[in-house]
């Protein structure tokens, strides 16, 4: 299959499931950040739980490769903080903004326009950032198991237990 068709089909299914899970909406995203409605965390951590087991099985069998993003400390920490601040005001993340537009929440178009502006700004400042924030300290493309020096099959059950424990807590608190 052609690269573009594969992307479109995968995106279609992803968007369909995001919409069915009702996680695209501004109110769901801000609801999670206000710690009042944990729908997006239930959705996301369920996907992570299932995906984590499958991806590691296939990776162990040599069928696919893991692709960690670099643990560049300045970039991830400053970027993470800026993203969180913008996310709270915007009420969408990059992926959900286009999905929200698809379900009629057309004010997402302004968020999308802003994000395109943010991308331009980043591209313009990139040469400056490579000699500053991005040059601070890069721990490389590393996974938690390698960082701790243990097998991923030791971490996976712990992560599963943690996520299921969170689900139980969300349900008990009716979040």
């Amino acid at each position, binding site marked *: 299959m052609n690269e573009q*068709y*594969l992307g*479109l*089909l995968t*995106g*279609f299914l*992803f*968007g*369909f*499931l*995001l*919409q*069915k*899970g009702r*996680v695209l909406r501004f109110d769901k995203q*801000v609801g999670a950040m206000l710690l009042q409605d944990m*729908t997006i965390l*239930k959705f*996301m951590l*369920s*996907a992570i739980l*299932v*995906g984590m087991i499958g*991806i590691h099985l*296939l990776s162990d069998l040599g069928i696919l490769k893991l*692709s960690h*993003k670099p643990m560049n400390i300045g970039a991830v*920490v*400053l*970027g*993470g*903080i*800026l*993203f*969180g*601040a913008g996310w*709270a005001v*915007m009420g969408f*993340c*990059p992926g959900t903004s*286009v*999905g929200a*537009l*698809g*379900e*009629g*929440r057309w004010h997402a178009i*302004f968020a999308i326009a*802003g*994000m*395109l*502006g*943010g*991308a*331009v*700004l*980043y591209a313009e400042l*990139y040469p400056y950032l490579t000699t500053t*924030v991005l040059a601070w300290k890069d721990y490389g493309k590393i996974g938690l*198991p390698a960082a701790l020096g243990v097998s991923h099959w030791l971490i996976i059950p712990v992560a599963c237990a943690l996520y299921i424990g969170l689900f139980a807590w969300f349900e008990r608190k009716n979040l």
Partner: protein
Amino acid sequence: MRRRPDDGGWNPYFAGALVGLLAIASAYATTIWLGKTTYLGASTTFVRAAGFIERSIAPDHVAANTYYTKEKVKVDWQFMLVLGIFLGAAVSSLTDRSFKMERVPPTWERRFGPSGARRAAAAFLGGIVAMFGARLADGCPSGHGLSGLMQLSLSGFVALALFFGTGVLFAHLVYGGGEK
């Protein structure tokens, strides 16, 4: 546990678990067809889309920019994935009647009133800051959150904790905590 949310959507655990299966299938399919395992993500597409727009105005400037050169301004797998999200959400919402034209979301209106212009300005400014952060961190809640945590990436755990932690702090500052 409620089996279905009140508005006819699917149980979020169920829909999320299906996304987990989709992520596995997608990682496998990209390995086969693209020759490289590619994980779900969205924010790089905004760089490419911005590059296309900027290139129509200032082609030489885009060609000379090191970041656009690094990320490559092209319609690739992820670009089509993001378009697919739009279409999938449209089909899902139109077929189960949850499609709704919305100018100002309810949570926003309770705090800042019905002004569409105010909402638009805030969404635009929030978008600039968020995307700048996502590009700096090299990922968004899809790339760092979903795909990163699935792979047990160190950067994914740090990024998602900061996305959510800062989000919680700012949401309480902006919308005021407490009232439901």
